[in-house]
């Protein structure tokens, strides 16, 4: 019965969403305050119903209700409880319900936090969000309800969660990633509301910024977690594969980064308005595109949910209405946008424009690479695949170009900066960076490569630029600590985010250039040397887990002559699905990961063993973590706090007078 309650709650949610999509929008276009005031209560009840629906599904999993088809397909009574709960989003239907639920969470947050907005804006924003909710809730209900029952031949036992997903990564990666994807719908809704109302002043960008920054932060950590999870779970030591679904998450991130920067320009200088609007629509469209690519079967990917062209068609129609409609609205209404000021060539605005262009170019290249196989197949020209060679060849130079301009951009003033002052400030630091970078690259590994060295040089240069900027802001004040405190939070989150980019860049450059890999056959007692580490294979023994049996190997690792670590890679067999999983053992360090995995058992008790030396790989995710904190931090900036102080001081002033 709980499953039926969940289904019913979802239906009620759809009804609320439909009202939300229509009533406040109608009120806004006719100026009817009564109708507009329905937006917030409808938004809140929409959230309530989806919460109930989600809880019902969680309950079905928690109680092993295998009469619910989705539970039977993704769970098992032997599964530990934390995996049973996260199996809720382990398959297509449940993850879609999660998507809709997270959308309603964002809608609720907008409803609660929108008291500072004019009523017609908040009504329109919530209505647009309601329309998105209608689209996805109806899609879930009609084609992919997780509450379908298996009442005739109810299985006694479930098919178990895919062992690849039985990991903490599953518990946190999808929810955080979806928070990011779905969060950009808020920026999208603000953009549509602005286009519909014709009001595109600076206030619009000020309202949109915190929502965009926080969504960006979530998407950043979602992608970072995905990469980290793939690294330790898949057992090959790779951390990014340019898989279509990975690209589908990276493209909105790139567009979202461009949006974050563009919003800053629009807020501070009233420029780039139509560009910012387009980016807001574009970012969310890329999120939706990702949803389409993963669930329609149009592209093959390790990530795809069950490929179903019928569902694909439904999502495509949703996409056509949302993206097509919003692009058309943009084309018609954006013409009336006027810039509020202008800027010189040597200014922060120019650099941010370059930033946007580079980011959008990278995004376009990834889009082309991802869709190219589909295009070739659709034209009947055969089946090809586009992989790392293409993506790396294009991404690496462009990202280095981006970092080059980032170092310059943080040092420039708004509107007008003097070229000579810029050169005076940056040329010495560039020279120092070149020296530092080359020396660091050489000291690290005598066999230097051009790409890694350039990456290090640019990292030092950005670091010095950031430092110089902070210095220039505090040097005129006598008490440095006060000057630091006076800087707004948004300034520090900017510095932290750019620092995060540098940290990730260093990680990527070093691991891509200097990682080592050996796949060898080892007998008990064999030992092998790699990069100054000696690995001794001690054999494999059998072990029993909660829902698997395992072959656990033991390798003792020595650094030089000293004991370094004892590592236990495993090969696990999960009887419920009959699958075998490779569990690598990783000695994680701040500057180096040693990665050990078992391959196949060979004759005479020997095993194929995979050993990897991964320098600085944790820096990649550390950078992502820093960027996430930066994004979240920016929402606490003082300008977003409500002006309650002004209201409370009005009475005392009156009494003084």
């Amino acid at each position, binding site marked *: 019965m709980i499953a039926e309650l969940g289904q019913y709650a979802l239906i009620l949610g759809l009804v609320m969403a439909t009202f939300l999509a229509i009533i406040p929008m109608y009120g806004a276009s006719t100026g009817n305050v009564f109708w507009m005031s329905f937006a917030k209560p409808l938004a809140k009840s929409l959230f309530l119903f989806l919460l109930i629906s989600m809880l019902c599904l969680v309950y079905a999993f928690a109680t092993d209700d295998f009469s619910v088809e989705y539970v039977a397909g993704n769970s098992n009574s032997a599964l530990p409880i934390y995996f049973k709960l996260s199996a809720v989003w382990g398959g297509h239907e449940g993850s879609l319900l999660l998507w809709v639920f997270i959308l309603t969470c964002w809608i609720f947050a907008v409803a609660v936090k929108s008291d500072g907005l004019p009523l017609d804006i908040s009504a329109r924003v919530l209505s647009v969000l309601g329309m998105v909710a209608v689209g996805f809730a109806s899609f879930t209900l009609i084609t992919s309800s997780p509450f379908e029952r298996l009442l005739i031949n109810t299985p006694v036992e479930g098919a178990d969660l895919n062992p690849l997903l039985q990991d903490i990564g599953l518990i946190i990666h999808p929810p955080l990633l979806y928070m990011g994807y779905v969060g950009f719908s808020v920026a999208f809704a603000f953009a549509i509301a602005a286009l519909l109302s014709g009001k595109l002043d600076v206030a619009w960008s000020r309202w949109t910024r915190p929502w965009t920054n926080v969504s960006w932060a979530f998407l950043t950590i979602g992608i970072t977690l995905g990469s980290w999870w793939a690294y330790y779970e898949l057992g090959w030591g790779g951390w990014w594969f340019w898989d279509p679904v990975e690209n589908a998450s990276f493209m909105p991130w790139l567009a979202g980064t461009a949006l974050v920067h563009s919003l800053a320009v629009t807020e501070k200088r009233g420029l780039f308005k139509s560009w910012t609007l387009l980016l807001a629509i574009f970012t969310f469209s890329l999120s939706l595109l990702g949803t389409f690519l993963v669930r*329609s*079967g149009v*592209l093959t990917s390790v990530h795809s949910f069950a490929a179903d*062209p019928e569902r694909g068609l439904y999502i495509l129609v949703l996409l056509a209405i949302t993206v097509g409609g919003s692009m058309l609205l943009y084309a018609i209404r954006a013409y009336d946008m006027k810039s509020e000021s202008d800027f010189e060539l040597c200014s922060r605005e120019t650099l941010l424009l370059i930033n946007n262009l580079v980011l959008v170019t990278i995004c376009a290249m990834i889009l082309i690479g991802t*869709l190219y196989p589909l295009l070739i197949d*659709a034209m009947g020209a055969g089946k090809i695949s586009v992989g790392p060679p293409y993506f790396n060849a294009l991404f690496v130079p462009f990202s280095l170009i981006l970092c080059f301009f980032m170092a310059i951009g943080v040092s420039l003033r708004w509107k007008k900066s003097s070229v000579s002052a810029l050169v005076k400030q940056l040329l010495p630091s560039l020279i120092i960076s070149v020296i530092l970078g080359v020396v660091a690259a050489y000291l690290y590994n005598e066999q230097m490569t051009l790409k890694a060295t350039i990456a290090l040089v640019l990292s030092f240069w950005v670091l010095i630029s950031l430092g110089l900027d902070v210095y220039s802001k505090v040097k005129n004040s006598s008490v440095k600590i006060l000057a630091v405190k006076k800087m707004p939070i948004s300034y520090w989150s900017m510095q932290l985010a750019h620092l995060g980019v540098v940290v990730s860049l260093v990680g990527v450059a070093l691991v891509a250039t200097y990682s080592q890999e050996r796949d060898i056959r080892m007998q008990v007692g064999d030992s092998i040397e790699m990069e100054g580490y000696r690995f001794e294979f001690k054999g494999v023994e059998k072990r029993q887990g909660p829902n698997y049996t395992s072959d656990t190997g033991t390798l003792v690792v020595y650094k030089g002559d000293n004991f370094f670590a004892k590592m236990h890679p495993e090969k696990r067999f999960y009887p419920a699905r009959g699958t075998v999983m490779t569990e690598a053992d990783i000695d994680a360090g701040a500057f180096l990961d040693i990665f050990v995995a078992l391959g196949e058992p060979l004759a005479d008790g020997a095993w194929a063993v995979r050993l990897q030396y991964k320098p600085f790989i944790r820096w990649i995710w550390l950078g992502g973590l820093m960027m996430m904190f930066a994004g979240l931090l920016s929402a606490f900036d003082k300008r977003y706090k409500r002006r309650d102080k002004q209201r409370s001081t009005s009475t005392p002033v009156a009494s003084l007078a």
Partner: protein
Amino acid sequence: MRRILLFVPFIFCIVLGVLFVKGLSLDPTELPSAKIGKNFPSFELPSVRDADKVYTQTDMQGAVRLVNVWATWCPTCKQEHSYLNKLATTQGVEIIGINYKDDRAKAKQWLKRYHDPYILISMMKKAV
């Protein structure tokens, strides 16, 4: 001019939409063989029927023929054998057999028992 430019994203979306509609009717997992259109690999293999005779790929050329790789230890080969017989006798398809990792005497006996549709059979002991 600017007005027209603003329609570019919209047009781009339409184009992508058309691509995706077409894409839904395709199956990306369906992979045609990579070897279609390529030359048959060259080889030199002894005959099954006559141990001294050796065949090369030139013996197969000259007409459109079906090459069947089979063995006595292969159960699915046995299942499809009656179909091959039908092709050879009623439809006149010329079938060339390649007996893989098998025993010559066993192969000859197997063919005597289940009927021999091949115009020529060669023996392959390991992958060429």
